[in-house]
């Protein structure tokens, strides 16, 4: 459907690349700014070479209340007027364009590399260095505040705990943080580049490890891409088992994060209980597919593992025990004044700021924004069995913790319903070769938020381009905003309340 110089599609619906309108640069720019003002969010903004010299930029604008995805494109010149001053959501997308393709968004307020990866083109524009240099993420210019008693604190990439690497640079006045800049890229493994030319034997395994704690989320997004391009309708039973796996992944991670939040404020009962209970949910995933993180559970066309009545029975018994233990454990948090004192009013983001920087997922819902792919852009079983969106309005650490708890309860009752009434059907179907010259967008509500994959096929039906946008890509900047005017000692707590992925961002 083409209207007003753009094409509208649904989540998981392929469209001809030739049907996507090529707009003049200024119209493209204006349409994005206007759409975001009207309530859309930028799901993707990326560039693909049309020929050796031409670069074409594509934007995917997601309109939550209508469930439509607007596609538009333009020929991208070597330099262009930056969107970011008029549309803050474009910030990281434009930095990525500059890094990957050596183009220059003129007027971008803080143009520096996103992942410190090598440029896809030899072509460089004046002033776009060090995009193709061998500089490391922590070794670049950081925003600095000058003044008496202002000091800088540098943390990472190797941290105190068992977590992934990233670099955090704080500008402090005493204990107070005036500004935090986050430098990532240490985890860059070249995933998107390796997707090109696929699918092949390795493709799904790259997707499973984009963010290893979100294996199910990212792999569903990938499977939806393949199924859209093969015009396949996944059997109902497979759809239900996928959703059960996705909600289990949410339960495990939310449980782990609530436990870790308790640990960060020194409330050890919930910290140690949740550490164990998280494992029970991972073990339930292993009961389904043999792997605690859902590796090999999914395949394009369905799922690889079925459940019989005996397995459902064992699943249900262990599941109810875990949820019951979890409920006791989490309720201790809300009853403990020492916990609430540290959670409340820490790391606040206002609804306006959250909208402006384009937060997604649970971080956005904790700022009172009703956004959830499962409701707004539903696919699979979510088209028939809805999970109502959980929000809270305070935007602080408490809000991010509390929204997790509401989501845990709703996911638990969803799993309970699904596992007892699994549709009778096959679990997997054979797929035909992928359609050539198509573009498809696939959105999934992972436990952190909106996962977006955009695939384009060439004339042979192979990937000519594959874009992965983990929710962390949208939300890392939110953590930086949340830290303003906070004590630096609250950083671990704020960081855990977002619990973002480093490798999902770095790809």
């Amino acid at each position, binding site marked *: 459907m083409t209207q007003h110089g753009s094409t509208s599609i649904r989540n998981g619906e392929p469209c001809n690349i030739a049907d996507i309108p090529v707009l003049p640069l200024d119209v493209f720019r204006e349409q994005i700014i206007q759409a975001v003002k009207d309530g859309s969010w930028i799901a993707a903004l990326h560039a693909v070479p049309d020929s050796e010299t031409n670069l074409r930029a594509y934007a995917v604008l997601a309109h939550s209340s209508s469930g439509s995805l607007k596609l538009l494109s333009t020929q991208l010149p070597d330099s262009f007027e930056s969107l970011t001053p008029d549309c803050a959501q474009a910030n990281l997308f434009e930095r990525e364009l500059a890094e990957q393709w050596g183009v220059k968004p003129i007027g971008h307020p803080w143009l520096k590399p996103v*992942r410190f990866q090598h440029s896809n083109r030899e072509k460089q524009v004046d002033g776009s260095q060090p995009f193709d240099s061998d500089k490391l993420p922590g070794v670049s210019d950081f925003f600095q505040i000058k003044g008496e008693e202002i000091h800088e604190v540098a943390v990472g990439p*190797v941290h105190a705990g068992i977590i992934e690497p990233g670099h955090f640079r704080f500008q402090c006045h005493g204990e107070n943080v005036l500004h935090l800049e986050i430098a990532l890229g240490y*985890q*860059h*493994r*070249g995933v998107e*580049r390796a997707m090109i030319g696929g699918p092949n034997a390795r493709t799904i395994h790259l997707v499973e*490890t984009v963010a*290893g704690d979100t294996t199910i989320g990212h792999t569903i997004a990938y499977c939806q891409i393949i199924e859209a391009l093969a015009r396949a309708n996944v059997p109902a039973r497979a759809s239900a088992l996928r959703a059960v796996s996705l909600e289990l992944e949410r339960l495990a991670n939310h449980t782990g994060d609530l436990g870790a939040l308790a640990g960060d404020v020194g409330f050890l009962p919930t910290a140690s209980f949740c550490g164990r209970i998280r494992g029970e949910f991972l073990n339930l995933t292993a009961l389904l597919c043999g792997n605690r993180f859902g590796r090999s559970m999914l395949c394009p066309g369905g799922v690889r593992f079925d459940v019989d009545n005996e397995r459902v029975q064992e699943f249900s018994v262990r599941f109810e025990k875990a949820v019951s233990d979890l409920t006791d*454990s989490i309720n201790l948090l809300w009853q403990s004044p020492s916990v609430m004192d540290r959670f409340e009013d820490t790391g606040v983001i206002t609804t306006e700021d959250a909208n402006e920087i384009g937060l997604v997922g649970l971080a956005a819902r904790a700022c009172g924004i009703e956004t959830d792919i499962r409701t707004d852009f539903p696919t699979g079983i979510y088209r028939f069995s809805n999970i109502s969106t959980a929000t809270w309005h305070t935007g602080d650490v408490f809000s991010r913790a509390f929204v997790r708890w509401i989501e845990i309860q709703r996911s638990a009752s969803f799993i309970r319903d699904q596992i007892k009434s699994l549709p009778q059907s096959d679990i997997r179907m054979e797929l035909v070769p992928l359609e050539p010259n198509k573009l498809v967008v696939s959105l999934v509500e992972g436990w952190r938020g909106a996962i977006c994959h955009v695939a384009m096929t060439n004339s042979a039906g192979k990937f000519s381009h594959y874009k992965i946008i983990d929710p962390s890509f949208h939300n890392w900047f939110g953590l930086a905003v949340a830290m303003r005017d906070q004590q630096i000692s609250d950083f671990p707590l704020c960081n855990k309340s977002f619990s973002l992925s480093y490798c999902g961002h770095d790809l």
Partner: protein
Amino acid sequence: MIDILRTRIKQGHRTIAYPMQAVNMPDRFRGRPVIDSAKCVTDCKICADACPTNAIIQIQNDKPQIDLGRCLFCTDCAEACPNGAIRYDSDYRLSANQREDLVTTANDEARPLVDALKKESLRLFGHSLKLRQVSAGGCNGCESDVNVLSTITYDLGRFGIQFVASPRHADGLLITGPVTENMRTALLKTWDAVPTPKIVIAVGACAISGGPFIDHPEVNNGVGNLLPVDLYIPGCPPHPMTILDGLLRLLARI
């Protein structure tokens, strides 16, 4: 307070009895891959072609061998084999000291397990091993299942093994991830900061061989090309029991 105590009592004692008692692995758990010689047809390449990481080594006129250092323990080869000759058993004890010992042999039973550290190292670390964990491109799968060893379920501290916040306090590094180019310098600096004598433990297919990212120009195909590895723990990610088993064998605790 009374609620905390009540909850504590209800949660019960949760630490597994291992190593005093054996542990039950999930029935679908994929431990050691086994090739059934009777069903395997020589000079057939179907499983090797299906493998995402070239973990299956084809040998002329013999059944193939599987390199556990590359294996993702996925289902691709088992599904592809037309004769159903490949399956996984439930053995989680997969670690090895030498890279080449990770390759399954024709007679799987004879495969060497982990040798304990040499006498002097064992005297130093046998009852107290402090490790600094470095994630160098890990996807948070291995990191999560290393982290889980410190929960009450496994209670790693009871074996005298602990993860510490600084390399200065550590007796060695436990490394995950394929070692991205962007993390190489940070990893080597962390290694230099650990006082000698020190050990290296590589956890997961990525840290051993590069895993799904093998031969990407952005990664170093694991830690083996950069540092001397004392223990390889395969898996994608390894089950916590696989990691625990490897660590305890290295310290001659089992």
